[in-house]
């Protein structure tokens, strides 16, 4: 056995993150920012926590996701525009998987096409509301595409508009977010 082979055999194999429970794509922020410079941002401060003043069994829950799901009767978001699409869609919380479709290219959604709940757990939330574990659901949930090259514009438009709708139109007590 040559020294090179001996040395290789002594080098421990990298651990498989699927078996160790670590982030499957480490350094995602860096790699995405290299590919799309300026798309990934940092914030210097923490937002003070809002408090839930009631038990979950009385709380109205909303769902917000960047997975790009929308009702089949609504137009899809623009997944080809180089700067992204700065609009969002309301998704009726009473919708079933058959009413919805995902239109987004930036993450694998083959499994979500089989069962939307792996990224947009709308049917699990409906069940929790029906059995009374949570107080209810807002009339609409929210969806957009998580590819936007102008974070300041995104904060002024999509983020501000969804936040306003969640609190003033839907009167949500809790928001569950799924960043696809």
């Amino acid at each position, binding site marked *: 056995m040559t020294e090179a082979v001996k040395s290789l055999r002594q080098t421990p194999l990298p651990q498989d993150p699927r078996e160790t429970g670590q982030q499957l794509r480490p350094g995602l*922020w860096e790699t995405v920012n290299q590919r799309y410079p300026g798309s990934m*941002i*940092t914030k210097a401060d923490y*937002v003070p926590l*809002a408090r839930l003043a009631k038990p979950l069994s009385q709380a109205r829950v909303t769902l*917000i996701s960047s997975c790009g799901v929308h009702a089949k009767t609504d137009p899809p978001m623009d997944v080809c525009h180089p700067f992204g699409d700065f609009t969002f869609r309301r998704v009726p919380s009473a919708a079933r998987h058959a009413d919805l479709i995902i239109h987004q290219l930036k993450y694998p959604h083959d*499994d979500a096409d089989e069962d939307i709940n*792996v990224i947009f757990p709308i049917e699990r939330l409906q069940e929790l509301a029906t059995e009374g574990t949570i107080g209810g659901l807002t009339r609409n949930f929210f969806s957009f595409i998580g590819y936007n090259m102008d974070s300041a514009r995104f*904060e002024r438009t999509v983020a501000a508009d969804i936040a306003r709708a969640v609190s003033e139109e839907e009167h949500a007590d809790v928001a569950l977010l799924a960043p696809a």
Partner: protein
Amino acid sequence: MGLIQRAVEARGVPTVSVTVARDVTEKIKAPRALFMPWPMGHHFGAPFHTVLQRRVVMEALQLVQTAETSGTIATLPVKWAEVRREAKFLTEQGKRL
């Protein structure tokens, strides 16, 4: 996504996100998050594994009540290898959990 979470929280509505990219969530300083060591597009697990999907949803919602400081990131120690094994079994059996 973190920008929306911060905007909603700032309006007085408590938020929690389910993330598979812990580093991104840390940099944007999301108010509360549940980190799952799973692939993109699979934040709530595998197709038709309703028990697991429900567990992730409930763990996340409970974090709204238990997190004491902004920036809290909890994790659910379920490895993706386990999820795949269970999902493969479900697919083979043509079953739902």
